[in-house]
């Protein structure tokens, strides 16, 4: 009886070891897939397009965005993305790359906010200027360290609000961000789920956006990523550029600070 049980257990252990091996080779092949995609990221096409849009005189005021201040002074883009969101004295608000960009398109180029945000993400056949511009601005921080210490009282307050939202259970499934993203070594199907409460986990997540998503063949910005996370968690979707999304970004960027940006990224 006992010997038989041992035999069964031994077989079970072998089966488990076998499946762990299969799992390893699966992960190796997925890594190979990702590596092959990274060499020749279509995001580069959007970067080119974003650069042209940035420099072109457009809108009712026929102005370019070259005087736009993303936090480091007018027109200074190198490293700007890695230090956002931040507090802007001129608007007295904590702004992320997208809310600041829209602010510039409105104040410098004279566009109406509802016009420039109508196509804040692309659909097949309907391109998004915002996606291209954010890809260009993001790429100007490639290789730089994320640096969002959230020392300004308004930034610190937003980091707190973001942390609260991260742990807040809500929606019909009583779900929170932290259920999937608050522990190490979790997966959903083949996707690793980063622990966003740690520098390593938040770093991996935050350093690779904006990212080209092969599923849609489109660039995804951080606003789209977070708003879609909330949709997937069956939460009511926040409005584009809303403070709740910016607050979450401050919290996550603060956790990720010190991580080197690798942007634009490419994901499945």
């Amino acid at each position, binding site marked *: 009886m006992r010997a038989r049980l041992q035999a069964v257990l031994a077989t079970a252990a072998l089966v488990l070891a076998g499946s762990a091996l299969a799992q390893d080779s699966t992960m190796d092949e997925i890594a190979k897939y990702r590596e092959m995609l990274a060499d020749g990221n279509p995001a580069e096409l959007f970067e*080119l397009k974003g650069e042209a849009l940035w420099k072109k005189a457009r809108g009712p005021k026929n102005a370019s965005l070259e005087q736009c201040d993303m936090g480091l002074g007018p027109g200074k883009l190198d490293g700007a993305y890695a230090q956002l969101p931040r507090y802007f004295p001129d608007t007295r608000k904590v702004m992320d790359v997208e809310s600041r960009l829209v602010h510039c398109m409105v104040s410098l180029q004279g566009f109406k906010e509802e016009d420039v945000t109508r196509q804040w993400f692309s659909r097949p*056949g309907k391109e998004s200027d915002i996606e291209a511009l954010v890809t260009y601005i993001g790429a100007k921080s490639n290789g730089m360290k994320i640096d969002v210490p959230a020392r300004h009282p308004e930034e610190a307050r937003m980091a707190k609000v973001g942390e609260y939202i991260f742990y807040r259970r809500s929606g019909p499934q009583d779900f929170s961000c932290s259920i999937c993203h608050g522990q190490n070594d979790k997966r959903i199907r083949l996707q690793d789920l980063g622990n966003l409460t740690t520098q390593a986990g938040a770093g991996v997540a935050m350093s690779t956006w904006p990212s080209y998503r092969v599923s849609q063949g489109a660039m995804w910005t951080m606003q789209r990523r977070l708003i879609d996370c909330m949709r997937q968690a069956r939460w009511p979707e926040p409005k584009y550029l809303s403070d709740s999304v910016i607050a979450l970004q401050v919290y996550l960027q603060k956790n990720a600070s010190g991580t080197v940006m690798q942007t634009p990224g490419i994901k499945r």
Partner: protein
Amino acid sequence: MADPMKIRASAKDGITEVKVLMSHEMETGQRKDSSGNLVPAHFITELSAEHNGKQVLAAQFGTAVSKNPYLAFKFKGGAKGDKLAVSWMDNKGEKRTDEVAIN
């Protein structure tokens, strides 16, 4: 007009390696839009690459080539500063040519 391509061409040890990204929807003709109508096929059909005016690759694509196509190939010869041009045409007759200097 179609958006520009991103072309990288680098010469090393007598071989030039070319990597091209093209901006194109590559619609299969099998996808339905939100109102249930088939979206007509729209895809690059032909591509040609020339080194200093001499063809180094010709390609024909079907609808199975991914959106925003990527293509990499290698040819013998090519020196830094030489011209490398890539042209494509799609099934609606739209065309695009871009040129870079080999580095």
